[in-house]
């Protein structure tokens, strides 16, 4: 699949947005740390009305903040974009609190917490906010979530010959779930992906390939490499590094032990 990225959104690592993240990646600055309880301040750009903001889970606000940045960078009306929302675990706070409440004698789960617990909560809030009636999917594949997100969005862009909004996002689990599934940081990356056009924009080629030694995805900086390894969304960071630096890059995004996506990025010439 021959694709092009026309907008990027970034939330995480104590960086304000994609511009700051790109600057950090370009100039070898380390990512910062964003504790879960301070995340709220970073998510004001979700643009939800106040009542909805109180209702929506943090994962929804995290995803939406990244989505707004990407669609505005692309200059595309978000109502026209099909939506691919990929998250390894969805709303970890809502899920943890629900499971904890259901183990109590009262077994209470509030209606809002229940509808926020569905994996497509974020795409639901987003589609309502922007008035999009295009197809919205919500997918997961644990540590390979970023890869299948890119695959699904790439296929939709290619076959529909139109731009597609992809957001990959993860929220850490609170304790005691964090012990069982340690995701270290909140992170969201949104991309507006469209079919590549001759002589325009950058180019991202994606093919299914056997896993080989070729295309090591590791980041040179140890702190960025930790983020790549410790957050499923972080698997996209080598691509972001190439985009931030305006450098070509080839790497393999594993789908499982034997196959992966062979990614080849070529900046705009």
């Amino acid at each position, binding site marked *: 699949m021959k694709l092009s990225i026309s907008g990027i959104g970034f939330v995480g690592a104590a960086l304000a947005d994609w511009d700051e993240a790109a600057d950090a990646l370009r100039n070898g600055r380390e990512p910062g740390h964003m504790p879960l309880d301070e995340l709220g301040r970073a998510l004001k750009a979700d643009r939800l009305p106040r009542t909805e903001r109180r209702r929506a889970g943090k994962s929804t606000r995290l995803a939406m903040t990244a989505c707004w940045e990407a669609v505005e960078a692309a200059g595309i009306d978000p109502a026209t974009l099909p939506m691919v929302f990929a998250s390894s675990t969805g709303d970890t706070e809502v899920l943890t609190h629900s499971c904890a409440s259901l183990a109590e004698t009262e077994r209470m*789960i509030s209606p809002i917490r229940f509808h926020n617990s569905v994996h497509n909560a974020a795409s639901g809030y987003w589609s309502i906010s922007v008035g999009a009636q295009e197809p919205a999917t919500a997918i997961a594949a644990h540590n390979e979530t970023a890869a299948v997100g890119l695959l699904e969005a790439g296929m939709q862009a290619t076959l529909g010959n139109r731009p597609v909004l992809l957001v990959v996002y993860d929220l850490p689990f609170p304790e005691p779930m964090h012990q069982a599934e340690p995701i270290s940081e909140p992170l969201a990356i949104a991309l507006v992906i469209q079919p590549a056009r001759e002589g325009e924009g950058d180019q991202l080629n994606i093919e299914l390939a056997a896993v080989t030694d070729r295309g090591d995805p590791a980041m040179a900086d140890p702190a960025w490499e930790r983020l790549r390894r410790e957050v499923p969304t972080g698997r996209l960071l080598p691509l972001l590094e190439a985009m931030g630096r305006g450098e070509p890059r080839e790497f393999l995004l594993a789908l499982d032990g034997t196959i992966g996506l062979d990614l080849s990025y070529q900046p705009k010439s």
Partner: protein
Amino acid sequence: MSASSVCPALSPNLPRLGITALTATTAAGPGQGALLDALRDRRGALAPCDFLDVDLPTWIGRVADLESVSLPRDLSDYDCRNNRLAELGLYQDGFVEAVAAAVQRHGVERIGVVLGTSTSGILHTELAFRERDPETGALPSPLHYATTHELSSAPRYVRDRLGLKGPIYAVSTACSSSGKVFASAQRLIATGMCDAVVVGGVDSLCLTTLYGFASLELTSTGPCRPGDVARDGISIGEAAGFALVEADRGEAALCLFGVGESVDAHHMSLPHPEGRGAELAMRRALDAASLSPESVDYVNLHGTASRVNDAAEDRALESVFGPGQACSSTKGWTGHTLGAAGITGLVTGALAIEHGFLPGTLNTEHVDPAFTADYLVENRDQPPARVMTNSFGFGGNNCSLLFGRPEENA
């Protein structure tokens, strides 16, 4: 304004798929035969809730004896109710043998697995929270989160169980999940990423959905009565269903003609009152199949028996087909199987096609007089060639599948 004139199908020219193997395990029993017998004998599988120590006044569609299903020893990390249901469902109707034959044709790397679920193995975590260390609050260790609760646990289990090596993922868009997997499979095959895909859905009973739907006051205190003027809510069920889909070579007895996907952009847990998103999904399925509304012989409704869902769906049906479209909801037999509802609807429609009858609606006495569709209560002796099945979920997420006998689509 016609919805189809402003919003074309996502990918209008996708090749149609051959459905070369199909199975479903529901509360009616393991395999298609159990569901067929229940449909023909008008024998429902819902019963008052006896799941664990759940204290809710509701009826459920529970698959019997899942507690005694065991997984192979080398896959024991996957052990949870949802994967036991996957295991039971997989070994029905010659499905595993059909996949083995597809492996001979295509190779293991060329076959993917995409399954829908709403809650996967969350019950495993819910029960683990009952075993927390009273001192530290820690959960029992290891929890095996990735192989039980995590959403792609079932597709991963199926991949490992069948020795497949293609791409795997879970689609989790609440109750439309296992409809939308067919769209993903169509894309995987159309782009050449896969030659065949195992699709379907696995969703099992858990506290989150039982207490969650009860908190929304969406569960009935008796067996659900879809479309009834006095309908008062859903009955939650569980199911595992699988389909093997491949590029159509003119050999399959059943074809997927088109998939329609949409969202309502209206409300997180209520459908648009006029069924706007549902209408769009059905129109997009027709567009994708290049078929006219007149060519659909029967619609297997989402028909959960919630007051608002059934009314909105009837409005949407009238917009697409006009009044009098033959349809029914089969949730009275199986309950609402949530993330497995799409595949359950497809298997029900396939049985109707193969055995030449239209299933009616169970437990329903008086169809809502406001409805304009031909809402079947009794089974009808009429062989359908083309069937549409609807599945709609929270977040306003809609999917319609249009399928049937291949020779009828010429």
